[in-house]
């Protein structure tokens, strides 16, 4: 099992840069920034699909092994962060760095949750719907949407407003949020550990 874990981690880490490069290429391909008729473009796009499928399969295996194997977790953390625990003091510092990472990640998650719920709208209404002669309106709200299709859109004709500024939920996709959280975990752990080891 140890050999399988080692191979699994190596495969995941070696495919990752290729996966990132091909993901960037696939994005450029989909936006039309790359000539779609070029023979290399189709080949690279297909290769990107294959790399994504491979990386997904590896991620699933990796996540499963990380859940059940404690020695594998130690091995992975050393490989990802390039920091190895050489003695008991460094193991102690790992705990402190992990605690910092946990708390800062929690703070980030709470911030993202608040931002995803927050709604603000600044708009003008027609003169006949003015309140005390004022046509400029601002609405603040808190919206909890547990499902993607749970948003209730108000029909335009009942509002007849002209938006000046409107903010509802996070302006980035769920993929970006997940990527941000992964990067945050790795960077936060690395930074904390290096600062503690000084």
């Amino acid at each position: 099992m140890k050999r399988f874990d080692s191979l699994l981690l190596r495969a995941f880490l070696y495919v990752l840069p290729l996966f990132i490069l091909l993901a960037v290429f696939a994005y450029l391909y989909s936006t039309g920034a790359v000539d779609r008729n070029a023979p290399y473009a189709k080949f690279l796009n297909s290769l990107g699909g294959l790399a994504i499928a491979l990386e997904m399969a590896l991620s699933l295996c990796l996540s499963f092994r990380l859940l059940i194997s404690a020695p594998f977790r130690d091995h992975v953390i050393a490989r990802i962060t390039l920091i190895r625990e050489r003695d008991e003091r460094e193991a102690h510092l790992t705990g402190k760095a992990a605690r910092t990472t946990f708390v800062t990640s929690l703070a980030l998650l709470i911030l993202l949750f608040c931002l995803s719920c927050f709604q603000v709208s600044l708009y003008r209404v027609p003169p006949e719907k003015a309140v005390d002669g004022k046509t400029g309106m601002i609405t603040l709200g808190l919206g909890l949407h547990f499902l993607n299709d749970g948003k209730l859109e108000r029909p335009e004709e009942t509002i007849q407003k002209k938006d000046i500024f409107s903010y509802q939920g996070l302006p980035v996709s769920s993929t970006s949020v997940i990527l941000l959280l992964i990067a945050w975990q790795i960077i936060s752990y690395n930074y904390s550990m290096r600062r503690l080891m000084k």
Partner: protein
Amino acid sequence: MSKTVPQLTIVNRLHVLRAEQRLTQEQLAKEVGVTRATIVAIEGGGYNPSLELAFRIARFFKTDIQTIFSVEEETI
């Protein structure tokens, strides 16, 4: 009614013993199986070793733990 718990500060004579034996931090670290940074941290008071490491250090200097590590009581 909260009881005042005394704050214990652990001090050590590791640098003294090391100097007596003319050992470098690197040599001592190698002998007790830790990194030099850990010896630096213990001598500077920045890190209190585990019981296991304390016993290993004491065994290396052929003495008991209390000769190397002692407690200074402070009340908070």
